[in-house]
């Protein structure tokens, strides 16, 4: 499965949700499908995309929050699973595109290439619903199912270590933040 193809499968389902990505290939590929004001690309602070997602999910419990993350980032902040599990916000879905590689900096293998299993870590951290898939149809169905369950969930999507042709995005960091924040503030509470 290629990450870009997996993103294409879920792209149209993201409109009513708040999307936080980590930096690098995930951000660039989501952006390449068409930027929307409900997308926030965390272009640094690796590992914290899920913490930002948790902060939003706890602040806006009626809005679905989707974190699109990578194995390299998650490995830098494994404690995030424990914190998410403790509060178990039903509106948070943490998707990890696991290419077993730090692709953006030259493809160095991460620990998921040598036996670390992020789905198992998530489950052992107390996340009740965690899955791993290599199949794009299964990924799509897991996504559709888990965004509507009454628990936080983790979906590890095993993808090829292939990235976008370019990582540049015509969007300033602060511009992205202001637009995203303004979008959230415009949403009506249920």
């Amino acid at each position, binding site marked *: 499965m290629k990450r870009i193809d997996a993103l294409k499968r879920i792209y149209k389902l993201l409109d009513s949700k708040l999307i936080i990505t980590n930096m690098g290939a995930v951000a660039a590929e989501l952006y390449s499908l068409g930027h929307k004001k409900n997308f926030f690309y965390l272009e640094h602070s690796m590992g*914290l995309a899920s*913490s930002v997602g*948790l*902060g939003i999910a*706890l*602040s806006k419990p009626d809005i679905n929050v989707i974190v699109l993350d990578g194995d390299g980032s998650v490995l830098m902040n494994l404690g995030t699973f424990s914190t998410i599990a403790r509060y178990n916000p039903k509106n948070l879905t943490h998707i990890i595109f696991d290419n077993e590689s730090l692709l953006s900096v030259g493809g160095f293998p991460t620990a998921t290439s040598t036996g670390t299993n992020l789905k198992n870590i998530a489950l052992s951290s107390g996340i009740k619903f965690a899955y791993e898939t290599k199949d794009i149809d299964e990924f799509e169905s897991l996504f559709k199912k888990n965004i509507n369950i009454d628990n936080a969930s983790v979906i590890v999507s095993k993808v090829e270590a292939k990235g976008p042709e370019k990582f540049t995005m015509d969007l300033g960091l602060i511009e992205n933040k202001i637009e995203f924040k303004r979008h959230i503030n415009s949403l009506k509470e249920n």
Partner: protein
Amino acid sequence: MAVSVKNSELIYKSLKKCGVKIVSALPETWLVHLIRFSEEDPDMQLVRLAKEEEGVGISAGAHFAGLKSAMLMQNHGFLASVNGIVSLAQLYRIPLLMIISYRGEMGETDPWQTEGGLRTESTLKALDIPYDIIDSSESVEKKINKAAVLSESSERPVALLITRDLMVE
């Protein structure tokens, strides 16, 4: 040694007056009452962390969602959060109200706190983080209010170091 309930209450009430709705925390001896007040308050969301740097993400999320937050941590937790502070809060202009217990300063009895104490203010200065020291109950409300106001208006991290004289009876 007992941690001052009265001064912890004063700090907590001051945070509430500033409109803080989310508090992230990692337990530390001097912070126990503050964490307990946060947990017992139905109008406060306490987020217990595995590592303090996560709190930068929590505060960023709260800021995006329009809520005011505060971080409760020890100075070693601040030192452990530096990358998140720089490459999230400062890079993206996120207000952080950091309440930091100032271990390792004058009067410290624990040897393991002393190196962190020595480097706390110099690290805050190196990171261009405005900070103030609260060492008496009289200035708690005013200093917390002023720090909260500056962090919101500047959209940057601001730190308050709470000292032994304030926290320990």
